Structures are given as C-alpha cells and as structure tokens.
C-alpha cells in the first residue's frame, strides 16, 4: 500500500493526464502566436485551435462550426441562459442543477423571465413527463443536467430533448459530468445546447465548450474581437484548447476499457463495504459508473471527510463555499432525503488511477472512523 494521498473525488475535478500536460507544455513554449494574427506565428496557433475543434466535433459527432470554446462549464451555462432567454419567456429547469444554472435563476426572474423548477424523484432522476407537463405557450427553453454532480444519476436526456423538439422548445443540457465518461452523438440528438468542462475528463481547468446546434441563436456574454464566430471574444487559450481535445480523445478511445475497470472497482467497493459490516445506503439509481453518493448513518459527512483527509484520503461532502465550510448537499434535500440523512451523506468518486488496494485502504479507514465516531 502506498502512503501517497488517495483521491476519491474525480467528480470535483480530475488530475491532468500526463500526455495532455506534455502537449500543453510544448504548445505553451512553442506556439505563442495570436490565432488572429496573419503571420506564420498566428497561423500555427490558428491551426492548433481549428484542428482541436475538428477533433472534438468528430468525437461528439457534430459540426466543428457548432462548437465554441469557453472557460468551462459555468461559462457555457451562463452564455446559454443569459444569451437565449428574454423578458416574457418561460424557462424550465430542475431544482438540483449546478449552481451555474440555479444561481442565475434569480437574475432571470428579475429580468421578467418566468422560471419553473422541476423536482427530481427519490431515485435522483427527473421524469421526462414531469417536464413535458410543465410546457406552456411561452416556454422558450428547458435546461436539464445530463448527470447530477452530487448523485451521479443520469437523466433521460434523450426523451426530454425529444419532447422539447416536438414542441419547438429549445433544449440545453449541462453535460459536464457526462462528456468524457460516456459516448454522445449530437448529430442524432435533439439537444440544442450542451455545456462541457475539460477538467472533468483529465483535461486542463479553465477551458470548456459550448455546443450550439446550427441555426440556434445565442447572444454573446463577452463581446470584442469577434473570436469564436463572435460568440466569445478574447484571444484563444491555445494550449488548453488542444489539451481539452487530446483529453477528450483519450477518454473517447478508452470508454469501454475505463467503464469495465471502474465497474469492477465499484463492485469491489460494495463487496468490501458489505464485508466490513458498515451500515450504509447508496443513493440514487441509474448512476454513472464511479460516482457514489452514500449515506453512512449517524456519521456526519463533514466529520467523515475531515477524518479521512487526515488519513490521506480525499472524498467530498456537500457544496464547499469560499471559506471551506460546507452545507448539506442540496441535491439530496431535493430528492426528498431528510436533512439529518443528507448531512450524513458523502460523495465518493472513483477515477482511472484507483486500484483495488486503494479501495481496501479507503474502506479500512472508513470502518475505523465510523466505529470510533459511532461509539461516542
């Protein structure tokens, strides 16, 4: 067993893939040209950006002209919500979205946009019919996350997008937790807008994507030099764009292998947990492999996190704020979990660098802490 810290929090962010880091270093050192410049320096950078765009378009099965580089998932979500909705529109979203969607709704409402929040069911998913039932004359757009970040549950995005399409309603999905973990075919979908962040699939931080289906209009958030077809001004982050493209390519080429490994680790985790005689419950169904939200009854999530951290193991509890304190996870309250149980629920997410020995160490530490705390 190694003594280096163990990281079970890939749903928060992933480490940077080594090949990606090397590529980015090389580009940072060698390709500093401004992609908008006409000279050879600029052309080189321009081509790196456009090749990356094409690479990603191929993987997502969309046109490269439908992809816009942003600073990440939060920015992509902001562009869509603020750049599509107007006064008098009706907007439907869920009550357990990422803060970069939920946090905007007050502002939207102040602007005169009507917002309906759909609650997830007890299994942590949204019912497509619930969303359909909320459609109104003036419903302009629906925004639903592909995978919930706290629970790892996958929403019926295909059905929701289909319903929206049938009613001429725009559909946006925050796919930050999904893309890079499972295949997606945008050409074959009714998704109009989709947000991606590279740091969830072993890519760099501070770079993401917005997919906008051809012909769907969005107003820019940042105007200026006309980059990204005028949707997002600012000199392109060349190395990060190339890094994201490579990271997505690596993820894409290893979906099956990765999924198999992670499922095996998941099963091993549950088996070992059962043997350890720990009272727990995995929350949510139809989960993405590798993201667990688990309630350890009568053990405060924050206490468990701190204790594990002291032992060199990182897991997640609740939504961290700037001061580093944490509140019970909102998503759990939204699926109807009592507050006391939500406060005893943590997220453990398993990445590709995790081994069975790591899981042994995690569960050994978990048991020791839980036994000690419950004795009190």
């Amino acid at each position, binding site marked *: 067993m190694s003594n280096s810290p163990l990281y079970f929090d890939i749903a928060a962010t992933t480490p940077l893939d080594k090949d990606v880091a090397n590529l980015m270093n090389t580009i940072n050192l060698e390709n500093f040209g401004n992609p908008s410049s006409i000279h050879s320096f600029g052309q080189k950078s321009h081509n790196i950006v456009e090749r990356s765009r094409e690479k990603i378009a191929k993987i997502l099965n969309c046109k490269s002209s439908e992809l816009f580089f942003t600073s990440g998932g939060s920015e992509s979500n902001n562009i869509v919500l603020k750049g599509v909705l107007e006064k008098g529109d009706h907007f439907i979203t869920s009550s357990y979205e990422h803060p970069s969607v939920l946090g905007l709704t007050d502002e939207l409402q102040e602007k005169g946009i009507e917002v309906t929040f759909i609650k997830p069911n007890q299994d942590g998913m949204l019912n497509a019919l619930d969303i359909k039932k909320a459609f109104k004359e003036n419903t302009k757009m629906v925004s639903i996350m592909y995978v919930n970040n706290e629970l790892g549950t996958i929403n019926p995005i295909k059905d929701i997008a289909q319903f929206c399409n049938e009613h001429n309603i725009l559909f946006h999905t925050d796919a930050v937790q999904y893309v890079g973990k499972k295949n997606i075919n945008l050409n074959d979908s009714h998704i109009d807008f989709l947000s991606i962040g590279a740091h969830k699939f072993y890519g760099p931080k501070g770079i993401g994507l917005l997919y906008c289906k051809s012909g769907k209009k969005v107003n820019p958030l940042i105007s200026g030099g006309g980059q990204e077809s005028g949707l997002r001004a600012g000199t392109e982050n060349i190395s990060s764009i190339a890094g994201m493209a490579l990271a997505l390519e690596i993820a894409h080429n290893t979906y099956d292998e990765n999924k198999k490994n992670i499922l095996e680790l998941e099963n091993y985790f549950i088996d070992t947990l059962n043997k350890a005689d720990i009272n727990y419950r995995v929350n949510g169904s139809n989960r993405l492999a590798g993201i667990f939200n688990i309630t350890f009854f009568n053990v405060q999530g924050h*206490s468990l996190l701190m*204790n594990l951290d002291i032992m060199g193991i990182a897991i997640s509890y609740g939504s961290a704020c700037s*001061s580093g304190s944490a509140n019970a996870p909102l998503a759990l309250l939204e699926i109807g979990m009592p507050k006391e149980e939500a406060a005893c629920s943590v997220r453990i997410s398993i990445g590709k660098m995790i081994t069975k020995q790591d899981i042994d160490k995690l569960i050994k530490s978990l048991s020791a802490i839980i036994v000690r705390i419950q004795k009190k």
Partner: protein
Amino acid sequence: MKKKVLVAMSGGVDSSVTLLRIIEMGYEAIGVTMKLWEYSDVGGAENLQENNCCAVSSINKAKMVCERMGVPHYTIDFTESFKKNVVDNFVDEYVQGRTPNPCVRCNSFIKWDTFIEQAEILGAEYIATGHYAKIEEKDGTYYIKQGDDTKKDQSYVLWGIPKETLAKTILPLGDLTKEQVRDIAREHKLETADEPESMEICFIADNNYKRFIKEYAPDKTASIKQGQTLNEDGEQIGENDGYINYTIGQRRGIGVSNEKPLYVKEIDSDTNTITVGEKNSLFKDTCKVKGLNWLINEPEFPYNILCQIRYNGSRAEAVIHKQQDDFTVNFSTPQLAITPGQSIVFYLEDTLIGGGIIEL
C-alpha cells in the same frame, strides 16, 4: 503515536503562534477555524477589515499558516448557533438596557464545547487556543491562571467555560507577551506576523454597535424613540436618543451641560429614561450576580475573593454571599460604574476561579 491537538485558528498572529508552539511541544496538530458569522448578512461589511476573524481573507491566512506547518486545516460552520446563542442575546441585552459581553458568551456556550466535540470527532485529545492565560494542574485538578503579560491577560473572558474542559485545554501563549508572540511569528515568517489586533466585537464589522442593533433587529428597536434624561432627583434635564444608545459609565454624548462632567448612572428600558450623575455618584459597593460558573469546586460562603468587573479593569477585594440561590458581592471599596450585563470575574490571587453576570 503523537497525541493530537485541535488548534483553534482565527487567522491572526496569536493562533498562528499557538499552532507553532503545539507542534514544538511534540503534538500532532489539526487546524480548525470556526466560521461564526457572515458579515454580508447585516450591513457594515463595507468597513470590514481584512483581519475580521470570519472574513474569507482571515480564513485563507489560517489555511496558509497551517499548510506551511504541514497541518491540515478545516473550516466548520457554526453561524446558526452563534447567531442564536450570542448575537440574538447581544441585541436582547441592549434592548433591556444592559451591556452584554458577547466574547464571554461565545466562549461559555459555543467555543469550548464545540471545539471539544470536534476534537473528539477528529480523534484529538486536546484543544488549544491563543488566549493569553495559563492552565496549570495541581494534584489532578486543573486551574486557569492569568497570563504573564498582565496587559494582555484574557482570563477574564474564560470564566464561563465548562470546568471539565480545562483538563483537555492547552493555552500555549500564557507565558508570552504579545510582543514576544509577534517576534516568534516574524522569526518563522508567518503570514500573520503583522496582522493588526482584532476589533472589539468580532461580528460588528464597523465596530458600530448602535447601527448594528438597529439594522439587525428593527422590529425590537424601531419603537425606541427619544427619551428623557433625568438627574439623580428624577427631574428631567434633557433628552436622550433612546436608551439603547447608552451604557452605564458613559460620559460622552449625553448632551447635557454641567459644571462637572456627567455620567450615565442608570438605564431604564421600561420608561426609556437614562439617569445621569457626577462621577462620585456612580460608585457602589454591592451588586447581585447571576448565571455563575465555578472553575473550582463551589466554595463555602461568605467567600473572600478578588473581583474584576470589566475587561482590562483592576481587581478589587470583595466577599460573595449566598442566600438560597441568590448571590451578592460586597466590595470592600466602592466600584465605579458596575454595569448590568457585564461579567464579574472571581480570582484568588492570579487564579481564575469563576464568574457571573452582574445584576442590580
């Protein structure tokens, strides 16, 4: 295995040096910052100093100091409990015409119990804070003694902590002066070495308690209009701005001219009047005490002790009497401006033995 100590980290120089000393003593330290207050909730935040203890910048400093020393750091949110047990009480006390001491209340009802509880959760045996006071053991019993730096001594604010927590508490700064603490911090190049002293009331960013009370509890304060200012014979000699704007012993801002300076002598919240008098009329040789806490086994009464009736005040000889459940303190020399709501703290020589809240 090293014993673990939970160190209360405010992000100031005192707690940073506390951490340093705990590590030097051979313990394994865990840094914890209690987040007690959200400044943006109640105005005044535009005057927020960087060193206000619950400000993000202070918490960041605490994290940096911990990381530099290889110590984990966590922030634990106690804003709800702090609001209920300290801030609400602070406002209520003023509304009743009294002068509360929120630091004492925080130590008595939140800090110690909570830190001990968190220590247990994290498998730590002790807690440590940066108060200028000492804990000494004698024959298996633990006592709080005043800090060696008498100017900085903070034992006064510790009278209310639960007695049984003393055995689990380490106060590593008790034998240092503030200057020594700063020197140690500079020597170790700690981020907090030159942090200014924290302000008086941690949750009032601009230190303007009158504004705070009005904004925090408009429902309780809006009806408090101008009232009468009376002389000692009960005759009106002026108007006051509403009794919550005054404390006993206050001299400035009374708004009545007199040959000799006048001081607030009494505050009556029922009639919204303040009574003023010359300094010599504010001396009293007795007061009642409520909410006592003993840090030794409860003594037999009458009991001769030294009493301190305000932070940084001097100590006076006195006798505590007990009649049924009522405690009265009789001072051997009259004391100036004994203020209801403030703490009266008992010492035997330099040992803190308990305290209570002053009543009239």
